[in-house]
């Protein structure tokens, strides 16, 4: 039995939540001095501490604690004045010591929120907790069909990643987003990624696994007010997949419920290629992990002065920056979101700083340049033209040296590597005809050649001037300032 997304939403209200794991960009691992790097040769960034050899003793990386507090503050969380690491015991070989050092009932940061921009409005996503733990090693599964853990004959483990500081950010359940739930989930991860990048605490590369998501989804029968059983979908490692995973779980759970079945609380795996989830191992109960306070690490009790120092070091956060720029540029939420989605906020800001009006900057980056970027299949910000050059083109238009058509030719020249806008204007001879004598002559010629039109304008039909403007533009091969031409025509005929 299959249920379409639209059918599912008629009967059920989705509730989702996200657990996001972020590798911190520290130089070294969380509890030892091994370099925390991606892509080194297997088992070359390991030591007795991260291999869990007898007699070794972990010591927490101060910068990892600082980064975690920084993330917590940026998410408006409270920072614990005293908390402990916890030992999570389990026997998968992705950790060499049979446990992972994590945090359990005493997370470093709790109870915050992140404002997410979606569809021109702001959705506030509650943050349950932010805690610090160590990442696990990486396993290669050998034998079996697809390199998956199921059906493998044996596994090969590389512990370079084991012990890299990992921050887990857990949202509160997000109800009430209805049809837009998958989009809100994606927008949350996008916003979180931008925030973490602006904080400089992680390189947040999803494709390299430095940002990974687990998505919890449940359905509530519309109007019942009762939340259903949730599933946890692992392995959701791109922004697009976040959206697809929520959507696919909504459809699957709706089909189960419609068929009279019940949703089982379980871990599911997301498959990038097909966009569907399949059942994974049934989760061990929390008590099976036998969490207890980590005896090898002393408690973390960040002094209030340190927390305030970190708070003072926070950069302007993306949501605050957005609000500031949106107000400065007098844009609506949707207009700003269009800039945001085009990845053009930064270049527009720089273009405005270089002297262009916000309206001009936006017009060029969202219009002509977005079209070129789209044709070339690149981000608008990576086009070979600087915001300063765009501001100069806008200034040349404003001063009447260029009209829009010539300005587009100048943009062509700059994109083709012919130099600055002024160099392109000089080399291609693109400036509008500013010689008043030549312009007047062309206007007089146009009037003489179109006596009927001229007569209509004399009778007050000034809208007919367009025909004459066109004739002048043709005569000057587009190099006339249309506004000036119109003024000259009206001067003569009215």
């Amino acid at each position, binding site marked *: 039995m299959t249920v379409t997304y639209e059918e599912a939403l008629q009967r059920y209200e989705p509730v989702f939540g996200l657990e996001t794991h972020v590798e911190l960009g520290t130089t070294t691992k969380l509890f030892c*001095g091994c370099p925390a790097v991606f892509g080194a040769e297997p088992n*070359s960034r*390991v030591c007795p501490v991260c*291999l869990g050899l007898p007699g070794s003793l972990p010591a927490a990386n*101060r910068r990892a604690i600082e980064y975690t507090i920084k993330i917590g503050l940026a998410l408006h969380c409270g920072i614990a004045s005293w908390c402990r690491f916890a030992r999570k015991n*389990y026997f998968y070989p992705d950790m060499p010591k049979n446990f992972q050092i994590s945090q359990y009932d005493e997370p470093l940061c709790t109870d915050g929120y992140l404002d997410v921009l979606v569809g021109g409005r702001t959705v506030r996503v509650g943050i349950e907790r932010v805690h610090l733990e160590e990442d696990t090693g990486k396993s290669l599964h050998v034998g079996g069909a697809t390199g998956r853990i*199921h059906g493998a004959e044996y596994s*090969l483990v590389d512990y370079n990643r084991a012990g890299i500081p990992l921050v887990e950010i857990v949202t509160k359940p997000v109800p009430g987003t209805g049809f837009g739930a998958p989009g809100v989930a994606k927008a949350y991860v996008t916003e979180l990624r931008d925030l973490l990048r602006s904080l400089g605490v992680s390189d947040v590369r999803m494709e390299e696994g430095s940002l990974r998501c687990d998505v919890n989804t449940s359905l509530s029968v519309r109007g019942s007010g009762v939340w259903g059983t949730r599933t946890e979908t692992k392995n959701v490692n791109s922004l697009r997949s976040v959206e697809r995973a929520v959507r696919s779980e909504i459809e699957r759970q709706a089909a189960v419920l419609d068929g009279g079945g019940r949703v089982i609380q379980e871990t599911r795996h997301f498959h990038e290629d097909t966009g569907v989830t399949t059942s994974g191992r049934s989760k061990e109960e929390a008590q099976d992990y036998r969490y207890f306070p980590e005896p090898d690490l*002393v408690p973390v009790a*960040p002094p209030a002065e340190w927390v305030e120092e970190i708070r003072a070091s926070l950069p302007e956060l993306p949501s605050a920056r957005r609000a500031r720029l949106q107000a400065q540029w007098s844009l609506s939420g949707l207009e700003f979101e269009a800039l945001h989605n085009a990845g053009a906020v930064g270049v527009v800001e720089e273009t405005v700083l270089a002297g262009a009006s916000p309206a001009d900057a936006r017009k060029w980056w969202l219009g002509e340049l977005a079209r070129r970027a789209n044709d070339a299949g690149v981000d608008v910000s990576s086009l070979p033209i600087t915001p300063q050059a765009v501001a100069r083109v806008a200034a040349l238009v404003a001063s009447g040296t260029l009209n829009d058509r010539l300005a587009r030719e100048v943009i062509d020249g700059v994109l083709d590597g012919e130099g600055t806008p002024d160099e392109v204007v000089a080399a291609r001879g693109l400036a509008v005809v500013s010689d008043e004598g030549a312009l007047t002559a062309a206007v007089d010629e146009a009037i003489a050649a179109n006596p009927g039109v001229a007569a209509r304008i004399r009778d007050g039909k000034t809208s007919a001037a367009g025909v004459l403007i066109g004739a002048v533009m043709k005569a000057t091969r587009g190099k006339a300032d249309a506004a000036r031409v119109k003024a000259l025509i009206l001067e003569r005929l009215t």
Partner: protein
Amino acid sequence: MAITRDEVAHLARLSRIALTDAELDHLAPQLDQIITAVAQVQEVAAEGIPPTSHATGLVNVYRDDEPRPCLTPADALSQAPAVEQQRFRVPRILAEE
């Protein structure tokens, strides 16, 4: 009884220790006795005293984010029961679905 035979069997499974029925019959009552003995501590614990996790009273012992030398891969793998492709080779993790 503080711990049942079933709970011991469950713990053994989590710990990946294969116990025979005879071993379970033998070990479960012993474990129960041990836990009952240790539980006597609870009789003397006074109210209002928080459980102790650390005896030193220290907090905030940190390390600077400075790199230290690693082991060579050869040294790191020297105690592994099996090695393949410069990685630790471990037995099958999950059974067939």
